[in-house]
């Protein structure tokens, strides 16, 4: 038994947990796994964190349990922050004074919320939105507040705004950029998204640089902006982006990117071949991947490397589909049309609050990006065209302009069995088809059987499409 390699996983977020899951699944118990979690609980679904406010409990959100880890023979510690790594001795030291030896160390430390250096940011009722503990604090504070404000209009910021709204606060979102969600969607989409979110009663203020947080008159705080305007609020949430949690790597002198992030190779190894980094703390080809799906892919690559497999990390598609405050938002590929010579085709129906955009190459043959706001019904079809690099059969605008669209096509009909439906858990269409043949005829049944759509949830629609497609075929066969 002493031949077992000791693997220490620092961090038990979604990616850290996925790594453990995969390592257990892929290996033949040749590893002795230790999980060190800084948070007071084991991995939970941070993607759906906001549902904590709409009634889900911490337990509902949890992805694993002590019993499960125990059953796998995994040593695990919560409230156990690693404070030091000694690479020469290959040990880690925790804040509780525990020293553990490793053969292979996996850093899945994730990220931390960036709080801009605004004077007054330490004032009371100024929070970040990252953990269940943060949410507890916010919830408690909100009870005594009337107005809440989120600094940051990105994906998470809007999630947080939604939470404040649900807590009954008059809610403001303040964004430095000229638009909401500047990472995922384009200016036009941002405009439409803003209109929709404002229609829901959240005040959106773009192009606002916060200068200072100080005493308010009608509220506790007052935010003063560079343009001279100001907003009063009782509670402030910072959601101004994330920064890779690379403090440990810095401490032990691993290679760090210029703007942070632990540099990794395609095997997710850091500059120390015995230390891996995965998820939001890792920097691959100078990029941080702030979504769960690429983190999972990294986890699988690291596992593969440990188990002499061939899976590597070769980047990830950042396409995403979600609902923000009930507003459907989709972003595929090069949403900003930054590819040289790219062509952009947009459709907007302000009355219905719909904005759609596709980006193609200069020959209008291939879809390279898309943005969908208000209506993401084309998402699966567009994502498939993008990922499979299918040649477009009609003019690009026909993909999104209702007058030009033919009968709705089920994108699953033309999908190859080998294509992935669930990118988080690498479930192919073929796997789902098999599950359907085996009697799974609902998304939940498929989810339970194949894990498809069990992580980020983007592919729920596509799973349904596959079900519909297969059912239609069966109906034809039957008739």
């Amino acid at each position: 038994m002493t031949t077992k390699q000791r693997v220490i996983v620092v961090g038990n977020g979604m990616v850290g947990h996925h790594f453990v899951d995969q390592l257990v699944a892929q290996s033949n118990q040749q590893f002795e796994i230790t999980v060190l979690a800084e948070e007071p609980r084991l991995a939970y679904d941070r993607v759906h964190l906001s549902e904590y406010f709409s009634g889900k409990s911490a337990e509902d959100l949890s992805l694993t349990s002590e019993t499960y880890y125990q059953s796998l023979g995994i040593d695990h510690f919560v409230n156990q922050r690693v404070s030091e790594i000694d690479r020469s001795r290959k040990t880690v030291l925790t804040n509780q004074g525990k020293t553990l030896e490793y053969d292979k160390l996996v850093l899945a430390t994730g990220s931390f919320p960036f709080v801009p250096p605004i004077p007054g940011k330490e004032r009371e009722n100024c929070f970040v939105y990252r953990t269940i503990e943060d949410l507890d604090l916010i919830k408690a504070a909100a009870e005594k507040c009337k107005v809440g404000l989120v600094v940051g209009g990105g994906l998470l910021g809007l999630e947080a705004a939604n939470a404040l709204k649900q807590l009954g606060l008059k809610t403001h979102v303040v964004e430095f950029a000229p638009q909401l969600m500047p990472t995922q969607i384009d200016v036009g989409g941002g405009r439409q998204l803003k209109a929709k979110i404002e229609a829901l009663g959240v005040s959106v203020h773009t192009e606002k640089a916060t200068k200072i947080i100080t005493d308010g008159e009608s509220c506790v705080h007052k935010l003063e902006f560079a343009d001279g305007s100001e907003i009063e609020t009782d509670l402030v949430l910072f959601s101004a982006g994330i920064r890779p949690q690379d403090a440990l790597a810095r401490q032990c002198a691993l290679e760090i990117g210029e703007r942070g992030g632990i540099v990794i190779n395609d095997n997710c190894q850091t500059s120390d071949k015995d230390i891996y980094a995965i998820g939001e703390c890792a920097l691959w080809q100078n990029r941080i991947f702030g979504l769960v799906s690429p983190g999972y892919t990294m986890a699988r690559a690291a596992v593969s490397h440990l188990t002499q497999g061939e899976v590597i990390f070769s980047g990830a598609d950042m396409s995403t589909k979600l609902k923000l405050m009930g507003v459907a938002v989709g972003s595929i590929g090069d949403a900003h049309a930054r590819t040289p010579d790219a062509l952009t085709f947009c459709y907007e129906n302000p009355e219905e609050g719909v904005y759609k955009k596709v980006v193609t190459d200069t020959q209008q043959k291939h879809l390279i990006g898309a943005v969908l706001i208000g209506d993401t019904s084309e998402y699966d079809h567009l994502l498939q065209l993008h990922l499979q690099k299918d040649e477009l059969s009609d003019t690009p605008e026909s993909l999104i302009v209702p007058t030009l669209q033919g009968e709705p096509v089920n994108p699953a009909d033309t999908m190859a069995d080998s294509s992935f439906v669930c990118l988080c858990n690498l479930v192919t269409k073929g796997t789902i088809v098999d599950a359907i043949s085996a009697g799974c005829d609902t998304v939940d049944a498929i989810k339970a059987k194949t894990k498809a759509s069990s992580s980020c949830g983007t592919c729920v629609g596509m799973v349904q499409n596959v079900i519909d497609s297969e059912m239609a075929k069966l109906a034809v066969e039957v008739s």
Partner: protein
Amino acid sequence: MLMIPMAEAQPNLGKNLMNKPAVRLKQTTCPYCGVGCGIDVNVDGQTLTQVNGSSDHPANFGRLCVKGSSVLETNDVSGRLLQPMIGDSVVSWDEAINHVASGFQNVIEKHGPQAVALYVSGQLLTEDYYVANKLMKGYIGSANIDTNSRLCMSSAVAGYKRAFGSDTVPCNYQDLEDTDLLVLVGSNAAWTHPVLFQRMERAKQINPDMKVVVIDPRQSATSELADLHIAIKPGTDVALLNGVVNYLAEQGLLDKNYIEQHTEGFSATLESCQAWTAERVAQYCDIPLEQVSTYYQWFANSPTAITFYCMGVNQSSQGTDKCNAIINCHLASGKVGKVGSGPFSITGQPNAMGGREVGGLANMLAAHMDIENPKHRENVQTFWRSPRIADKAGAKAVDMFEKVRNGEIKAIWVMATNPAVSLPNGNAIAEALAACPLVVVSDCNLNTDTTEWANVRLPATGWSEKDGTVTNSERRISRQRGIMPPSGEAKHDWQIICEVAQAMGFASGFRFTSPAEIFDEHARLSGYENYGSRDFDISGLAGMSEGEYDRLRPVQWPVNAQYPQGCSRMFEDGRFFTKSGKAQFVGVTAKAPVQITSEEYPLVLNSGRVRDQWHTMTRTGKAAKLTAHIAEPFVAVHPNDAERFSLIDGQVAKVTSAFGQVLLKVKLDSGQRKGELFAPMHWNKQFASQANINKLYAPVVDPISGQPELKHAAVTIEPYAADFYGIAFSRSMIMSDSEYWTKAPNQAGFQMSFAGQGEISDWLDWCQQHSVSQGEWIRVENSSEKSFRVMCYKAQQLEFVCYIQATPFAEDTSWLSEMFMLQQFDREEIKALVAGTPTPEVAKGRQICSCFQVGEKQIIEAIVDYGDDTVEKLGERLKCGTNCGSCKTDLSGLIRANCPAVAV
């Protein structure tokens, strides 16, 4: 836009037989150029449903040009000033009248009568004009009343007066058809006086021996008709014309008998002409010798000749001399007062002549009497029984505004004209109006570049409401009839003037209750103490009843005991209104224009008009049909100059003079002389960001006539470094804030062309911000080429489309406008707009025929594919050119360009 019900005139014939007919016919006069065409208007209830040329009106015999045929499109109340306003507040008429009267009175009391002024217009009716002049010269006691006619034909007036002793146009329109040689100097009649041009065309068809010479620095639609086009160097006309006299003398072809019996001053004039041999003329005017010789031979040997001249002659620092140089040619060859002969000045406004008759110019008194003549002053004052009479000439237009600017004039009342656009050195005019303590503007429009400066705005009636008389270029007085009641609270100009006069305490002279009463006084004054001493005598029209006045048929003055039915041609007896009764030769010397080019301003800027617009566009600018021909102002540049100044076709260029700067689209035109630019003068702030070209001109005037030199500015041109060019069409309003923009109504609704600098991050958002369109939007973007297409549609109807690109539009974009007219707007149409490729239905090309909306591509197709090699064949196939005929020269130009074997 006025709702014009189509073909609903006969709802129930049986019922109408019992009552009076539903559709009435009213005969009136066109409100545009100086041809003065009769118009028949169908009136259905309160709606004007149709216009036709009056078949019995001697000016046009049923013809109408495209501007006249579209007059109903400009006649709606949109944009009208409908209530009196002080500042931006609506006030009662009483308040407005008292404000103006007391304002004028205060200034007069403090600073004297020279400190107030009226600036009036050739668009006033004679009756309006008459009372304005009476108020100023007889009651206020100053001659500070001048008219915008100063800008168009005051040189012609001065020329006639020097030669004939009177402001008399000797010819008539019939002469144009009866002549053997028609010389057009400084006139683009094909575009500016299309009905007369059609008469010329027809005359030439009937008499193929008739010769047409066009003297104009640039190739124009008019020069299409010419047997000989002489593109002289601008401003050298006097040399060319003096050469005619010299040639007549050299060749022994002078009419010595006529010179002897009917003229004076010939020998001195001949002396001033003798240096001008054909060779020297050719060199001086920068033209081929054979062109000079041909013109001279034709003129000398033709039994009859008309020299037809307009603004190209008059708007010059030696405009009066040019007019006399023309008259000299006719006197020396005896070609005056004969059928088909004479020096024929054409006016640009419907009632420029009426203004001359009543004394609307600052240097005239009334009824062609002279301010400097004590007997005339006594006549007029006695006749008027007025407290005062002006005894010296007042300030002429350009001077008047200079006096406003320097504070000598402290109250000015502008009527029916737009000096902020039409006067030279526009920046100084704006300064003057801004500085003037009291600016009163009577207008039918709420917003013009001039009303912008008004302290008081008085709503005047417009065409179809105004009632009175006008006089056209052949001395023909016609009724312009009030067909509609005044819109809103508008009043007739004569009423407004009379009310102000009464409020100023001048009740006795202004108790008129109808235009007929005013006309009667005017007619009586013309005969007062006349005894054949003055040309203008319409005493024969005095004493008409209201009914007779209303039924007055077009008649050419004089109308008196000698000519009870009017007089079609003057000076047939060789007797003139000079002291000696003889016509005067006036020796003139060729002078260079005052605004000459320099190293800094190396180019000459010529100005003029386009076919379908008139003056400052306050009316024609409202008609979609009229903007399709040329929707955007431009500067015509010879291709060599374009290369020299790094300009390409369609690009926005900055044209700068020492006085101002404009932004115009470059139009390459090999019909321009090198070193010379041409730009239309119509556009102003209501229609374009910076296209008012008159502001480039120096306030230089002819020393005798006071007419500004508006055809010869020294300018330079450079590319405007636009980052984007855009064209937008919309069913509803479009707004613009780009540095360069021009707007026009069109068949879809509105169109806008724009260009600017900087980067617009989201053109879809921009389009939504700059329009009021609602519906489904599509945006297409090619970011590397920086080209964008934005469109909006709703319920299968296109609402808005805008194309933006980094370079000027080389392709015709008129099809975008046609997309709005389609019955169906569906898949194919959306795809066409996305792709930027017209569907077959809309590929008509740039509009050539405005009446039937026939496009250039259609015409070229007919020429190339069907071999239509005459204008008539094209008309049979496409109807183009078969209504107003204004586009016929464009058609023949297209035939020549696309069918080189054919001589048109």
